[in-house]
């Protein structure tokens, strides 16, 4: 087992948890990425678009800060995108696959009211039954999907 990768996972996970706690402590909001960005982009502005936009800019600048520090703090397992060194990995497929995947991720997190952060990091921490059901569902379905793609069809992601 790659202990360095696991340790970085733990450290990064603690940071993600602290971010969610911070957002609740200061603004009283759930740190759900699909909710924050989805509302920002698809809902009529209601006066609190500013913190959402700032959150997204922060989210994007996190990896940039790591790149500026030299990139060695990144944790990619595959190939990194050229300019980003070890910080941001290459997509696992081409444009056509990503169009399908993106539509499913958007539609699914929209209908299901959350993603890995909202249901996973925040919902599980609140012991929400809805979030536990959602998290278990998308984890199991994703595992089955990867099994089908990699071990039954072959190739692809």
């Amino acid at each position, binding site marked *: 087992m790659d202990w360095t990768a696991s340790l970085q996972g733990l450290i990064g996970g603690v940071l993600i948890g602290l971010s969610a706690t911070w957002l609740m402590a200061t603004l009283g909001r759930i740190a759900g990425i699909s909710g924050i960005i989805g509302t920002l982009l698809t809902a009529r502005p209601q006066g609190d678009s500013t913190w959402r936009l700032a959150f997204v800019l922060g989210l994007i600048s996190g990896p940039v*800060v790591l790149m500026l520090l030299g990139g060695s703090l990144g944790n990619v397992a595959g190939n990194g995108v050229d300019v980003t060194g070890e*910080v941001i990995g290459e997509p696992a497929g081409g444009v056509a696959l990503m169009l399908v995947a993106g539509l499913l991720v958007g539609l699914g997190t929209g209908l299901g009211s959350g993603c890995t952060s909202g249901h996973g990091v925040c919902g599980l921490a609140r012991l929400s039954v809805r979030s536990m059901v959602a998290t278990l569902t998308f984890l199991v379905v994703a595992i*089955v999907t990867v099994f089908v*793609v990699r071990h039954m069809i072959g190739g692809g992601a």
Partner: protein
Amino acid sequence: MKRETIKTIMGYIAGLIFGLGLAISGMTDPARVLGFLDLAGAWDPTLMFVLGAAVVTNFIGYRLVLRRPHPLFAERFQLPTRQDIDGRLIGGAALFGIGWGLSGYCPGPAFASIAGLTGPLVAMLVAMVAGWFLARAIPARG
């Protein structure tokens, strides 16, 4: 300082820490995410450590924060109140699971990876936003 400015700064800091966490943990690499989801392959446990550490940290954090009467810079805590398990929740989560398994991207890492923009990532992001619009167009009952 105006309250709106403070809220903006707090939002930025939250996003920055979140983005740093995703990058340090390697979640900005779809290969790592797919390695975790591929139980029958060379299994990569990293995502388990990330999610576990995030949930435990936030569980403790929420315990400390939510006993206060209100957030520091807002009037009230805005927590989800729904408790029902319906088809929209489970069906949505299942569709999301398929997309996540195909790409290795969930919304956070996909947007956090914009600094390493590639054609496929653009396609992922555009389609994701289209999916959010589509979800809003589907009425809650019916």
